[in-house]
């Protein structure tokens, strides 16, 4: 659903940032640090990374931070004073990709499933996404195989597509998007009658999702399959931590004598400790079972319970895997197995 289409001049981005900041919002935008690109607060649009297919970490940290305090406590005599985390600052994420934008709904489906996670929801409510569609893709991208596309509008508040002149075609998609435009209406000109499609990257469909989801329940017991695929897996958590849709977390209490904090930290099913019981028993004792869990959770369990896939096809896990575990390749192998 597009509310309206506008044109945003390339040199207007800086002015838009100024207006958003004047409105009390923090802006997270891609910034290069060495060869890696992170979403960070930027003072000026000129600090942004220019040319990137994907950022190193996804923008999920804006709504589901790497480490967040759930509450703090302080002993006062015999009483305990509990302090909740303060209201999150209104945030605009700029320059995320359509696949990243699509991940917010996946995260939300978990955090508002049986339990309504107020902290996550208030962060999400305070976050707006100005997405920039993809003009380039690489061999790791597979958004089109999992229901997305390089110019997909899902999850974005404003979608920008760079057109021939270097300016952006802006699709205002939600009320949040409209509210941002209202802050600086003079920056949004009449949209040219251009079709954004021709500026978008071509990402061919790489596997048949329906076949994959049909085959997965049966593949569950195929130990050899999982073992063969995961033999080189080193068991780190890089895939889960760069993933925009991984939601698993660990709760850590850190206390000093009279005060402390309860933290929520990212966790990964790739770790052997993830399922280890206090007794010493581990229901997933080997890496192949952890790899199976990762695939099954994203493409089978998630699909059944949340009506979403747990994957947006951004390809980060495969780009960053130190052992070159290529998710796409392994999904293809399962979907195409006879």
């Amino acid at each position: 659903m597009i509310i309206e289409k506008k044109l945003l001049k390339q040199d207007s981005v800086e002015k838009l940032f100024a207006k958003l900041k004047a409105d009390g919002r923090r802006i997270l935008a891609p910034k290069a640090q060495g060869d890696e690109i992170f979403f960070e607060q930027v003072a000026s649009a000129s600090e942004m990374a220019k040319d990137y297919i994907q950022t190193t970490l996804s923008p999920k940290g804006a709504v589901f931070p790497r480490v967040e305090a759930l509450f703090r406590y302080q002993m006062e005599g015999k009483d305990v004073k509990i302090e909740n985390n303060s209201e999150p600052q209104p945030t605009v994420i700029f320059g995320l990709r359509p696949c990243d934008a699509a991940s917010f709904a996946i995260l939300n489906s978990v955090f508002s499933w049986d339990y309504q996670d107020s902290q996550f929801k208030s962060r999400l409510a305070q976050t707006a996404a100005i997405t920039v569609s993809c003009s380039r893709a690489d061999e790791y991208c597979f958004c089109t195989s999992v229901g997305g596309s390089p110019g997909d509008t899902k999850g974005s508040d404003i979608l920008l597509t760079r057109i021939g002149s270097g300016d952006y075609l802006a699709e205002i998609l939600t009320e949040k998007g409209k509210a941002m435009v209202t802050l600086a209406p003079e920056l949004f000109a009449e949209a040219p009658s251009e079709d954004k499609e021709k500026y978008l990257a071509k990402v061919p469909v790489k596997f048949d999702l329906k076949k994959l989801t049909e085959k997965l329940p049966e593949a569950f017991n195929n130990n050899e399959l999982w073992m063969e695929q995961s033999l080189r897996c080193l068991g780190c958590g890089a895939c889960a931590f760069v993933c925009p849709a991984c939601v698993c977390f660990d709760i850590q209490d850190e206390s000093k004598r009279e005060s402390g904090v309860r933290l929520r930290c990212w966790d990964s099913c790739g770790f052997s400790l993830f399922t280890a019981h206090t007794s010493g028993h581990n229901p997933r004792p080997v890496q192949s079972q952890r790899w199976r869990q990762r695939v099954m959770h994203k493409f089978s369990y998630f699909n059944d319970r949340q009506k979403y896939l747990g994957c947006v096809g951004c390809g980060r896990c495969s780009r960053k895997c130190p052992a070159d575990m290529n998710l796409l390749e392994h999904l293809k192998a399962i979907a195409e197995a006879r």
Partner: protein
Amino acid sequence: MEELRKKARELLTSGAVKVIIGYGPGSGKRVRAVFVRKPEQADLLICDDRCLQNLAVYLTKPEVKALGKAAVVARLPTLRAILQLAAENQLTDGQVVALGISPEGKMTELSQFKAIEEFLAGFSFELSAEEKATLEKLDQMTPEQRWQFWQEQFAKCVRCYGCRASCPLCYCEKCLAECNQPQWIPAASHQIGNLDWHIIRAMHLANRCVNCGDCSRACPVGIPLHLLNQKLAEEVFKQFGARSGMKAAQEYALCNWKLEDRENFIK
């Protein structure tokens, strides 16, 4: 490369080994670890400049051990890792065949630790001029600048433990990072947790690291972790004259001492 494939085929056909751990084609232009178990798959093996991963990391994995006796395609750091693992009683002589690859790409079959030691003796374990210059640059900074540098680096750390997982010498079944009674290292990837983790990792690898650089290559956020290990390796060499991974039986400098060890910092 043909030589390597031929040797792999031979070893598998004769049944001398059950699996060749080597490099094969990966995603795009990448190479990846492959576990060749049939002679006809030997043609998968690749050996060129892209083959950097230290494959010794797989030698201690139960899943890989279960495949049977292994031959491993081994560049110099991998050979050193094998000897270091041997020195730490993680490998026994004859348990693994190393297909040693010299820097020029020439293959030599090394089936005994002694052969690996002799092979390695022909190569220097000095840091390259470039590596030395990087360390030097950091050493010349003021402590405040170094603090700033490392804090910025550690701020990126997400605690995926890719550094640990990719390291052939990080074979502990239970890492200190996983102990929670008491919890020495905060599991959270905040600045204290990250600082503690990287200090521990570096300390536990002093005189054990073989300088393969896999920790830094594995790091998804680009922290130059190998610098910490290189710094301590240089320090161990300077103070105690020890290098890791040189002999299959060698003492660990930090489990050892000499009466005349330096103590000018002690009152």
